[in-house]
């Protein structure tokens, strides 16, 4: 116990897993007790097993998987928006980080949006882009890119100047310094920015699909809510959390594979 308040003490992997599993189980227990005890009406709080039943119903019912179709739609939108975020956001962030003048010009346009109520933009996007796919992807894109751009910029600026000077000394042109030295050195942190962007998009997916969604996890939750099928609402939320977590884990794994040197340092 003397190691309890010691952030540097190594924690046995098994112990860590058990503590994690334990707290999830504890939550499930409290949830079950609340549902069984009748303290909260079952219409307001479905029991865990009811959510499981709803999950299995959504996963497979009469030869059709509502959940699978909805996931495909949501993941597809997320992927399209993600490709746009990467293709547009990373170059902008790199330019801002690499050229102080670009940063000075663009940061007043980008930085305030990190704290802007992106959700409040939705009606405006609907007005401009209609209620179709374009609006949904634009919403996800904006929500994520305002986080990504400043993070990419910071990643570039965090590369120690000595690498730039060193490359210059070896005869690199300024642009060669940027793309041969600074960008490769910033890649792990740029990857972090992409990971954050995808997490942000998963949290916004329901909002994006709130308006006129015919397909998608957001629509699934929205529909269930309309019929007060709270077990399905819970099921939908859990699926989104699981997908976001899986995306995160996959991307972290990919990042470690691509940039193993970051952890060696």
């Amino acid at each position: 116990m003397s190691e309890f308040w010691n952030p540097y003490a190594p924690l046995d992997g098994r112990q860590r897993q058990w503590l994690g599993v334990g707290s999830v189980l504890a939550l499930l227990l409290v949830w079950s007790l609340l549902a069984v005890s009748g303290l909260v009406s079952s219409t307001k709080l479905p029991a865990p097993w009811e959510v499981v039943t709803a999950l299995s119903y959504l996963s497979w019912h009469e030869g059709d998987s509502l959940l699978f179709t909805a996931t495909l739609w949501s993941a597809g939108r997320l992927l399209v928006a993600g490709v746009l975020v990467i293709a547009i956001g990373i170059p902008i962030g790199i330019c801002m980080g690499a050229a102080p003048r670009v940063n000075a010009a663009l940061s007043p346009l980008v930085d305030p949006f990190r704290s802007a109520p992106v959700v409040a933009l939705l009606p405006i996007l609907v007005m401009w882009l209609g209620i179709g796919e374009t609006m949904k992807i634009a919403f996800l894109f904006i929500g994520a890119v305002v986080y990504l751009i400043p993070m990419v910029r910071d990643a570039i600026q965090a590369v120690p100047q000595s690498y730039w000077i060193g490359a210059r000394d070896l005869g690199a042109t300024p642009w060669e310094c940027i793309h041969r030295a600074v960008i490769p050195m910033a890649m792990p942190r740029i990857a972090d920015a992409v990971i954050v962007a995808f997490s942000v998009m998963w949290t916004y997916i329901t909002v994006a699909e709130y308006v006129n969604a015919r397909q998608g996890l957001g629509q699934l939750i929205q529909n269930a809510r309309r019929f007060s099928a709270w077990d399905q609402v819970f099921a939908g939320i859990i699926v989104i959390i699981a997908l976001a977590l899986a995306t995160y884990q996959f991307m972290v794994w990919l990042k470690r594979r691509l940039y193993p040197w970051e952890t060696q340092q």
Partner: protein
Amino acid sequence: MTVARPAAATPPSVVVRDLVQEYPAPGGGVTRVIDQVSLSFDQPGISMLLGPSGCGKSTLLHMLGGVRPMGIETPTAGQVLIDGVECNGPHDDAVMVFQRYANRPDLTVFDNVAFPFRLNLWKARVPEAEWRQRVADILKAVGLADKLKLRPAQLSGGQNQRVALARALVLRPRILLMDEPFGALDAQTREEMQQLLIELYQSWPCLVVFVTHDVTEALVLGDRVIVLSAQPARVADDFVISEARPRSATWQRSREAQALEERILRQLHQASPGRGQVRVTV
């Protein structure tokens, strides 16, 4: 020594004329870092720039290589001429070895040394087959032939400086500028690196300007020792050591060496009483 031996470097001519460099001081005004320094180098050899820490010797070395302080006028006055041409930016013939943080953590040993050849300047000058051979040779010469695939984090401090040295020498520079390259190493590794530098120098005799605050290092390596005063840096002394390298421990304890050491310490003391630090490691 296995380094393929091309024709030795054409002797460079480096002239520093009345060089002055000032920085804006934190509380307003200016701090003069380099004060009226005039030096001239016209043949291969190892020249040691010796001075107390923080005296401005690194700034002077950086200015020789065209790595200039950013955001201020530079030089404040005077000139650096390489082969008679004023040098204001990175010079193709001058390559720098820094004290640390020079190796790329994301590249393997091989790629760190091959890095210059990814740049258009060197790509255009050296065909791929040749630079691959050169990289292999120099890595053998610095004793890292079996570490090609490792990354800097997997190497010791001394091995990292071997990589840095290899990356500079693979370009066969006419001017090699070394900024306290062994300053962060332990005593034994430092001695090994000094021996390595002597060997490498013999296979590629160029103009080496070597910054140090270690009097012993200056005596072990230098063909010429330039003593600088504490900030602002002025030339306090400038003399030649004719003893052939490698210089034995006997020589280092000889009357001649002792006299030189005393001379250096006296100059440092006169030029900068009670300021800065020098290291004597014998």
